[in-house]
């Protein structure tokens, strides 16, 4: 069972490389190859839950070398949960892009890059080595820059270029931090750093903390560093923005923050305070800016910033309930935000526009998309019985328990903002009067509909069967994070 771990990296990499020559032979092959790869990943990620207790930590030694000499792959509750989420979203998005990407040239290259992105994310989640984490982070980041620019129109190129600049600056911050950590501890293995890194506060520790915070904050698009995200999300093809918002910024940003601060360097109360403060600012700014957008992909992008703020707020509280809520919100956001982006892609495919003002009355023309959008919006706004309700409830209750009433108040306010801008989205897109230009609009193709319906059902099911999900998937992950908060 341990032997499955490197395959999470090797299989998508093999798929990515094979896609190029196969695409030359037959243009139909690469999508199916990508589908097989992502189905395999999903199945193994699910099977891991049945053959291994999620609390147990399994370690795989690359090349048979023991920890400080070689690189380890480590699987614990948190990484297991994220593997499942990543594979699920990747599988659904692959099915969706088989239809959606018809409008672009160079389809096989798209699938190559998509699988390279998967390699990067799986590697980041699995690795137990600081420098290796950086390398995988770069794989994921570089393939994302290209995917954002996939249409090679001026707008997309500019967004991708901005993303590239900000992303490489962030990478340099992280690399600088990695170098500092290495020169202090003399090792790169995460577990060894955790035991030998000096616990007492000092200038060096502060510097390293700030470097990692800024670097991963840029990758996660927290508010002072969020400038790239709306452009990139708007410009990218819909499946890419779904992955970008659903899993990528969380893996590259939030997961790395959690892993490095909670499990390796150790957290201090000041750091927790800063994290939750950043979360609050993100909630407010993201929500407020989303309210004034008329381009619906851009609206969704700002909404992403706001929801990432919730995750960070929950994690920054440092209490079991808060961390549970934060991580649960991470999973939920990985379900409903891709749903919304894929719906947006479906609408864009059918109507050919992204302007909210130019559409309306689509509820009759695209009934399935309307229902799934309704599900997604209600879920993201935190209405029962959908999954978003539980996680937001947890975060707010945890705020109150921790005695931060103003934080709870802002969280509630953010929730209201979320509801407001999604009502705006629903109203202008689906109700109102049908503009004459859109008389001939048809429902999106069947495969795209199937994917969105699946995601919407998942949102509902996770909300209804919440206790089982929490027991099976969430608790082991929360336990891992809580390790770091213990004094």
């Amino acid at each position, binding site marked *: 069972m341990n*032997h499955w771990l*490197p*395959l999470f990296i*090797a299989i998508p990499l*093999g798929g990515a490389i*094979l896609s190029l020559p196969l695409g*030359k032979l037959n243009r139909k092959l690469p999508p199916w190859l990508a589908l097989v790869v992502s189905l395999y990943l999903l199945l193994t990620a699910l099977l891991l839950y049945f053959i291994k207790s999620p609390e147990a930590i399994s370690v795989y030694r*690359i*090349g*048979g070398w023991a920890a400080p000499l070689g690189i380890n792959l480590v699987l614990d509750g948190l990484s297991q949960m994220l593997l499942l989420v990543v594979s699920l979203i990747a599988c659904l998005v692959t099915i969706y892009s088989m239809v959606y990407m018809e409008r672009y040239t160079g389809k096989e290259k798209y699938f190559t890059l998509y699988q390279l992105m998967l390699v990067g994310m799986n590697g980041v989640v699995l690795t137990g080595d600081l420098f290796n984490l950086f390398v995988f982070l770069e794989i994921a980041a570089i393939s994302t820059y290209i995917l954002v620019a996939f249409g090679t129109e001026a707008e997309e190129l500019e967004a991708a270029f901005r993303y590239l600049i900000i992303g490489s600056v962030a990478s340099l911050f992280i690399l600088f931090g990695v170098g500092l950590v290495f020169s202090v501890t003399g090792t790169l293995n995460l577990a060894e750093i955790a035991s030998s890194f000096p616990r007492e506060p000092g200038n060096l520790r502060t510097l390293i903390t700030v470097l990692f915070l800024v670097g991963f904050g840029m990758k996660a698009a927290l508010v002072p560093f969020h400038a790239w995200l709306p452009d990139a999300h708007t410009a990218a093809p819909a499946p890419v923005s779904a992955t970008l918002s659903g899993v990528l910024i969380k893996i590259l940003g939030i997961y790395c923050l959690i892993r490095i601060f909670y499990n390796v360097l150790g957290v201090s109360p000041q750091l927790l305070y800063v994290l939750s403060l950043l979360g609050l600012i993100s909630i407010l700014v993201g929500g407020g800016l989303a309210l004034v957008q008329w381009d619906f992909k851009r609206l969704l992008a700002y909404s992403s910033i706001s929801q990432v703020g919730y995750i960070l707020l929950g994690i920054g509280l440092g209490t079991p309930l808060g961390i549970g809520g934060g991580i649960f919100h991470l999973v939920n956001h990985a379900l409903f935000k891709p749903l919304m982006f894929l719906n947006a892609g479906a609408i864009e495919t059918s109507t050919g526009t992204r302007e909210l003002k130019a559409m309306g009355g689509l509820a009759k023309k695209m009934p399935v998309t309307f229902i799934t959008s309704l599900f997604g919006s209600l879920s993201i706004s935190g209405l029962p019985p959908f999954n978003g309700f539980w996680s937001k409830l947890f975060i707010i209750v945890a705020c109150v328990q921790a005695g931060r009433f103003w934080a709870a108040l802002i969280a509630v306010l953010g929730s209201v903002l979320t509801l407001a801008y999604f009502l705006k989205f629903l109203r202008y897109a689906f109700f109102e009067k049908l503009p004459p230009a859109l008389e001939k609009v048809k429902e999106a193709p069947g495969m795209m509909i199937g994917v969105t319906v699946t995601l919407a059902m998942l949102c509902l099911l996770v909300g209804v069967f919440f206790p089982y999900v929490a027991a099976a998937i969430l608790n082991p992950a929360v336990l891992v994070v809580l390790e770091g908060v213990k004094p």
Partner: protein
Amino acid sequence: MSGMSLVVKVVTRVTAAFIFIFGCYVSLTGQLELGGGFAGGIIIAVGYILYVLAYGKSEAEIETSKEGAAVVMCLGMILFLMLALLGFIGGSFFNNFLPKGQAGEIWSAGIIPLCNLSIMLEVGAGLYLVFLNFITFNVTVREEKE
């Protein structure tokens, strides 16, 4: 694009061979002395670039060499991955499954020379491919402007 003057061509003919040999040498003796697949691959790519710049190539030739370079690049990458997977079958991912040999000889260090070889193929062909793309892209831009 056309080639350069006769002097450049003659000098290139002599030096390009040396560059190729040096690139192969650097990558294949990576386990003994300095160098390795990356450096060797880039040296080989630079050698090809020099050759192309000196002699010039027609559009059609560029297209065919693009195809070839892409295939070689994928081949190198697959070889690297296959080495890792062979080690995986023999025990663990990237297991050094070949005999280690006497340190200091050409055939020593197990899979390291093979890894270097595959990286050399990937990097050399890939960067040559990138260069060819830059050339052809420039041509199209100029045509659009005129």
